[in-house]
């Protein structure tokens, strides 16, 4: 099987930076957020709030850059959801993975995400993270709602939405971490996210529709 592997450059420098920067922000935001929520004491409430606010605002800027990158490079096309091969991928993770079958969608530079990943990352980038940013910013600006003309919100309501989003991110994180172990070896995917290069099964049978336009 190893003879059938080839090194593919999957993740550009910006992507890798964005990924790990985002990972750091998420971990710290989760830790400080759960402390503010009252789940444990780590930094102390005051420091946790300061750090959480600071990172939240940092995130807003970083995310704007991510969106800019996504559209200027055309990478957004890799996030367009599809049902094609979806069943095969689901079947692979439910059954095939236990019987040593090959992944139905090997990665290539132009087709980094399988249909399940497309759907997951699209949900994350276009729904969950913006939702967290919106509820977080609203929470942060609570004291200026009147001046900003924002009416009809309750602090408790905003807080509970932000909490739900936070738990969703934590659940994503757990699943995501686990899924990184499903590569050729346990660390293949993680290594690729550091170096950019991944060992991928040859030959790429990515269909034309999966590929990013040139």
């Amino acid at each position: 099987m190893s003879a059938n592997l080839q090194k593919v450059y999957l993740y550009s420098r910006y992507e890798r930076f964005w990924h790990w920067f985002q990972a750091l922000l998420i971990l710290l935001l989760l830790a400080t957020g759960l402390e503010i929520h009252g789940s444990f004491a780590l930094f102390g409430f005051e420091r946790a709030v300061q750090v959480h606010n600071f990172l939240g605002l940092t995130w807003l800027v970083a995310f704007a850059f991510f969106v800019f990158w996504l559209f200027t490079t055309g990478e957004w096309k890799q996030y367009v959801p599809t049902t094609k091969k979806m069943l095969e991928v689901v079947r692979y993770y439910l059954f095939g993975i236990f019987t040593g079958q090959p992944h139905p969608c090997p990665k290539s530079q132009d087709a980094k995400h399988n249909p399940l990943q497309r759907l997951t990352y699209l949900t994350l980038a276009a729904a969950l993270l913006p939702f967290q940013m919106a509820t977080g910013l609203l929470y942060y600006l609570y004291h200026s709602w009147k001046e900003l003309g924002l009416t009809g919100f309750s602090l408790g309501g905003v807080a509970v939405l932000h909490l739900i989003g936070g738990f969703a991110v934590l659940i994503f994180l757990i699943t995501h971490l686990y899924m990184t172990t499903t590569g050729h070896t346990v660390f293949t995917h993680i290594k690729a996210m550091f170096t950019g290069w991944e060992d991928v099964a040859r030959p790429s049978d990515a269909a034309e529709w999966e590929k990013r336009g040139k």
Partner: protein
Amino acid sequence: MAKGKRLWIFGATTFALASVLLHVLLAAPIAATGPAAKPSEANKAPGRALAQNAVMAPGGRWTTVDHSKLEALQKPFAKPEEVTAACLSCHALAANQIQHTIHWTWLCDNCGDGKNIGKGGKTLNNFCIAVPSNEPRCTSCHIGYGWKDKTFDFTDKNKIDCLVCHDTTHTYDKFPTGAGNPVSEPKLFPEDGKTYQPPDYTKIAGKVGLPDRYNCGYCHFYGGGGDAVKHGDLDSSMTNPKKSLDVHMDVEGLNFTCQRCHTTKEHQIAGRLYTTPAAPERLSLTEADLAAKIACESCHSAAPHKLNTKANDHTSKVACQTCHIPEFARVLPTKMRWDWSTAGKKNPEGKPFKTAGPLGKPIYDTKKGDFTWVKNVIPEYRWFNGAISSMLVTDKIDPNKLVTLNQPIGSANDPQSRIMPFKRHTGKQPYDKGANTMVIPKLFGPPESDAYWAKYDWKKAIAAGMAYVELPFSGEYGFVETEYFMPTTHMVAPKEQVVRCEQCHSRDSRLKNVPGVYMPGRDASPMVTGIGWVGVIGSLVGVGIHGAARVVSRKKRENKS
């Protein structure tokens, strides 16, 4: 690739610039003013700077008269009333001013309910319960001479006691059971073991001046019948407090007198708390320098902390006192509970007795019942707009429920209300079992009277007290649980001892009983939290099973091949 590299460098630079910009606009102060930041003149809390400027003016107390040189005061005085007459011979308007103050009437004149509110009215507390019928004992703290019963003439100008407030020698004493009179011969008061001396009126009158903490404290530190009994934030430790006890009255520092905040005009002293809020308008000195400067905000502004710190967002909902008075009774213990129902026990010799408690204060007294004394008390918190409503002795009660004798007025929806700390004193005191109303018992009186402390008979004592205030008494009495609130506003601690965020922002919050406000850390929905953690654990279990299955199936395949 080169194009990509340029884009990358461009992007990184822009990101850095944009981040800095956004943080400067929205959050820079958060980072710059964290607890680790060193305080410097530049980033000092503006509210402190403002208040410091307000009290920085040199001069202080000065006068244009030496009273000891005045002819009217250079004579021997046989009676205190003669001193008053001498005072009024120059201070011609003073008597009229005094006789319109609550210090004189012990009645709230603008509470709009026919002079029922006040110590001299029909309100009650759960310390010594009420003044009427007990005057000679209680009125030792009246600014007058001889209010021993209903016959006291409140229009007699010479009955005004100028000296108790204006004596700067601190030698003037009123006898505890003398209806406000000092003694004319040295006299022992057995209860405190102190011999009271007749005042040297000529010397004292020659040295009169503006009141200081000793003068106000002469009564206000001893409310409820003794030092530190009543308020919790006012006791004799406040006569010369250290900075750790009160940053404003610190005897080695700012050394504020009471009037520095309780501003006074024509003998009317600001800060009384009955039905009208003490400070209805939250004005600062810069908005109106003649406003009653009773609130912290008057000097410190509504955004007193360092710029853009979260603490400034709290001032619309939380009173300054809530964070800045972490505990009251920090030097002397204060009484937190008074159970009258156990009073009247006698020792084996058949005599009244007292039992000493661990804090150096009696925990039982035949005359008064059981007490609980506590030091370093964490206050209770209530919404408060500055006004307090009091029930009257004539109001119907439910004896099976806690009777609230007075309560702070305010709510989360009222923009004038803040969360405020209170001393909540609980007690058990007599009520009219037949009529379900509270009662005013006669406690103090000569041995032949029906006073409780004379005969230890509640029925007679209540009958005597109620007859005195011309109210009915069914003849049946019981004891009912009561509570009584006093705002905690003195004993402002140094900023290092301020209440920490998590003392309120936690499940076990100091504010756990304060409704109507969402507080991060206190209020998150337990259901959402529960579902959230179930989801987290579920996903952990899910990936665990999936991972284990992968390991097992791989082993099986390897064994087969």
